[in-house]
């Protein structure tokens, strides 16, 4: 067969690469600066400045969102736009879409930077942004996807290199995760309630939260590794075959691992086991990928001495290996019992974010800048200094948080008298014992930030006065082979036989006796049929797979199927179960309007960043906080507030534990009640009025979500709030605390005193209509 090929010159569009790179550096510095500030606040509470928008609870979401979506997001887009064009030998299809993507993304980040400190939040970690911004994120992501797939459709390279696979997985999966976890019903332009509540919300949240790490912070960066590391080392990846196994295993496994964030909680046990098993299996592909990256340098290790790009890449990949070793380790139930809610998790995520993402970003930027501006890097010595400053910074940060986390875990779970008495009953003992480690952590973060400021200066000096240049390449444009299409991709013997084999094998393992036997016979029959079909048709199935690698559409569908399976198996059974039936004998008593208003204040102030509301099935937890949390105790919580970190104690059973005045004085100055506490003061709660006007709409939405509020009027709501508020104020007055019923502190106290209040439900009463909220 003869093919006609014409030679043509392509000029790549590297403008968005430069834009995203600069944005990543700028937002990275902002995100890290906020990180250093909030780390320092944990050592010096005074740095909260008694100011709402500067408190830890509001700034911590700003830090995490800035680092994930602004720093790594922009870095990822720069890498994807640069490498995709070169790997498919085609210019990015639409300059307009590239610019819409860039400016749209920056507008989203700016909106986040304004709304989060104002306390406008959905109250779910890494998913705090309010609903209008959520819609903007989804739209801009679609713009990115269209531009990417349109470029693939116009490519001049038939095959899809493995980096492109990782980008495809990222685009598909992030869209799925983001949309599902952000499903909400608005109550106003800036507020909404998520459609999931309690244990369902917890599962969906960590299915999203874990896979935000997987598919936003890992898979695109692995694609970048598979492109830029060979480029920097000047040699191909160590094993392309291993990269294929790495991709499919990782994409298939990662999506199942989310429940490891909820071990020993109210989450059903089968889901906990699933999360643990799949997390442990992740060890293999993660380390396969890491070794593949490191061994790419075979025979070129000497370059490490002189090339800062390779230094960053090698350290980055090593941190990837370390973090992906630690992740499965932390998913083992007993290890998790020690580490969860402690600073160990903070060490783990920063090994990933600073070491893997931060160093891969730095390596890529140092490699790109001289090429994008056609001028050598301004200072190699400064880049080397950045490397050592950053490396020592990470080590200080991570090691201090390891020590702090293990200390916290051991102290808070330690018992005497055969496990009947807590060894450290005062929670603050764990806080004060680890205080000096907070200083080291802040120092480590500051060093890492200083390194990035050096990078910004170095790249600024490289680019200033230089001419920005786009890469060009001469390619032979071949006549495109006929595409497989979706039907050609899936309606063929290999796919049909393998699907049947999987289905029958699963039936054999999972179904009861007779059905299991039938499935075994069906499996054997299908296997024999497959052999016979191959013999008869002389088909070589490998050709199907090789063609698949040249056809983006069926490949994308196959990737989507891989990630959807994990989502469906976890999410669907948990969402469709009858929550009224599965409450473990207790059912939450719905909030009154004033308590609901107090809860919204709790969410607004980001209390979940430091306080959990989930007593685990562990001796230390039960002795300290009371009976372990049951599934029914949070079924009406939209959003759930189980938290992921205990800088302060758990609050699941806080109601009635202390008098109203305790909360009053504690919120005004925590150290007056709890010497050594690092919690901020909340003076504005004593002056600002509770928003009663919005409660009717909020209750309407809660009713739509299945919370058994009675239909009520605004006047009834106001009266209910007044009555409950006056009772609290009268009680406060007896303890010498003066306020009025309309202040936010009163609503917050009402909520705090409700925590842990539930009704016991006898088995025969499970389906009975639950108690309706008091008016």
């Amino acid at each position, binding site marked *: 067969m003869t093919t006609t090929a014409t030679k043509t010159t392509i000029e790549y569009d590297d403008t968005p690469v430069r834009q995203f790179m600069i944005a990543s550096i700028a937002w990275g510095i902002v995100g890290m600066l906020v990180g250093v500030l909030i780390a320092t606040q944990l050592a010096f509470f005074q740095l909260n400045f008694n100011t709402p928008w500067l408190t830890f609870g509001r700034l911590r979401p700003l830090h995490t969102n800035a680092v994930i979506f602004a720093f790594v997001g922009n870095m990822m887009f720069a890498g994807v736009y640069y490498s995709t064009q070169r790997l498919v030998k085609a210019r990015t299809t639409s300059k307009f879409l590239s610019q819409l993507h860039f400016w749209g993304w920056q507008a989203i980040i700016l909106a986040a930077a304004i709304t989060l400190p104002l306390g406008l939040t959905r109250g779910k970690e890494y998913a705090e942004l309010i609903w209008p911004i959520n819609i903007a994120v989804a739209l801009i992501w679609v713009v990115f996807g269209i531009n990417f797939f349109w470029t693939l459709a116009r490519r001049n390279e038939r095959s899809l290199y493995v980096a492109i696979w990782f980008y495809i997985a990222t685009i598909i999966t992030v869209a799925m995760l983001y949309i599902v976890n952000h499903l909400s019903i608005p109550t106003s332009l800036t507020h909404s309630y998520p459609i999931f509540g309690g244990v369902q919300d917890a599962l969906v949240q960590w299915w999203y939260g874990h896979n935000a790490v997987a598919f936003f912070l890992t898979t695109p960066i692995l694609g970048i590794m598979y492109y830029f590391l060979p480029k920097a080392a000047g040699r191909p990846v160590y094993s392309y075959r291993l990269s294929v196994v790495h991709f499919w295993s990782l994409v298939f496994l990662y999506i*199942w691992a989310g429940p490891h964030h909820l071990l020993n909680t109210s989450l059903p046990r089968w889901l906990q086991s699933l999360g643990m098993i799949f997390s442990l299996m992740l060890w293999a592909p993660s380390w396969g990928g890491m070794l593949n990256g490191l061994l790419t340098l075979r025979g070129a290790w000497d370059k490490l001495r002189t090339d800062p790009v390779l230094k960053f890449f090698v350290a980055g990949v090593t941190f990837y290996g370390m973090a992906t070793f630690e992740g499965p380790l932390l998913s083992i139930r007993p290890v998790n019992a020690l580490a969860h809610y402690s600073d160990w998790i903070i060490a783990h995520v920063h090994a990933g974010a600073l070491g893997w993402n931060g160093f891969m970003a730095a390596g890529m930027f140092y490699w790109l800048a001289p090429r994008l501006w056609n001028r050598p890097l301004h200072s190699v010595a400064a880049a080397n200094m950045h490397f050592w400053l950053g490396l020592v910074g990470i080590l200080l940060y991570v090691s201090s948080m390891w020590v702090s986390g293990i200390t916290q875990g051991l102290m808070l779970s330690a018992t005497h008298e055969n496990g009947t008495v807590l060894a450290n009953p005062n929670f603050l003992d764990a806080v004060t014992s680890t205080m000096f480690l907070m200083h080291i952590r802040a120092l480590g973060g500051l060093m890492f930030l200083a390194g990035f400021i050096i990078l910004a200066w170095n790249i600024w000096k490289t680019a200033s006065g230089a001419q920005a240049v786009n890469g060009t390449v001469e390619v032979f444009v071949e006549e495109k082979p006929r595409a497989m299409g979706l039907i050609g991709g899936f309606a063929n013997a290999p796919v049909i036989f393998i699907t049947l084999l999987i289905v029958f094998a699963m039936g054999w393992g999972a179904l009861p006796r007779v059905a299991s036997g039938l499935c075994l016979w069906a499996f054997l029959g299908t296997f024999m049929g497959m052999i016979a079909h191959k013999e008869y048709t002389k088909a070589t199935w490998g050709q199907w797979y090789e063609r698949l690698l040249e056809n983006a559409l069926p490949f994308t569908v196959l990737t989507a199927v891989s990630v959807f399976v994990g989502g469906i*198996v976890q999410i669907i059974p948990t969402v469709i179960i009858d929550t009224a039936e*599965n409450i473990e004998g207790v059912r939450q008593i719905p909030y009154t309007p004033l308590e609901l208003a107090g809860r919204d204040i709790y969410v607004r102030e980001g209390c979940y960043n430091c306080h959990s509301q989930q007593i685990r099935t562990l001796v230390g937890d039960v002795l300290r906080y009371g009976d372990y949390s049951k599934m029914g105790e949070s079924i009406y919580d939209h959003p759930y507030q189980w938290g992921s970190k205990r800088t302060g104690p758990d609050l699941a059973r806080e109601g009635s534990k202390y008098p109203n005045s305790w909360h009053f004085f504690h919120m005004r100055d925590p150290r007056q009640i709890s010497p050594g506490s690092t919690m901020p003061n909340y003076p504005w709660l004593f002056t600002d009025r509770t928003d009663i006007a919005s409660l009717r709409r909020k209750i309407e939405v809660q009713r739509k979500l299945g919370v058994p509020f009675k239909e009520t009027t605004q006047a009834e709501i106001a009266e209910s709030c007044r009555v409950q508020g006056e009772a609290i104020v009268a009680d406060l007055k007896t303890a010498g605390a003066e306020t009025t019923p309309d202040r936010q502190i009163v609503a917050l106290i009402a909520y705090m005193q409700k925590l842990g209040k539930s009704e016991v439900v006898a088995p025969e009463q499970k389906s009975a209509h639950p108690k309706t909220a008091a008016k």
Partner: protein
Amino acid sequence: MFHRILVEEWQRVLTVISFGIFMFTFAVIALRAWRMPREIVRRLENLPLENDTHNHE
């Protein structure tokens, strides 16, 4: 130490199903990767090393 009540009994099988689906998929992919023709592997692994003007410094 504390007994966590399972939700609905039939959901136990999902862990087995999940594990089985992965192992089967892994086996198929590993076999496919191992049997990839050497010339295709060579061509694919060298794709990032094809230069444009950015690499002619």
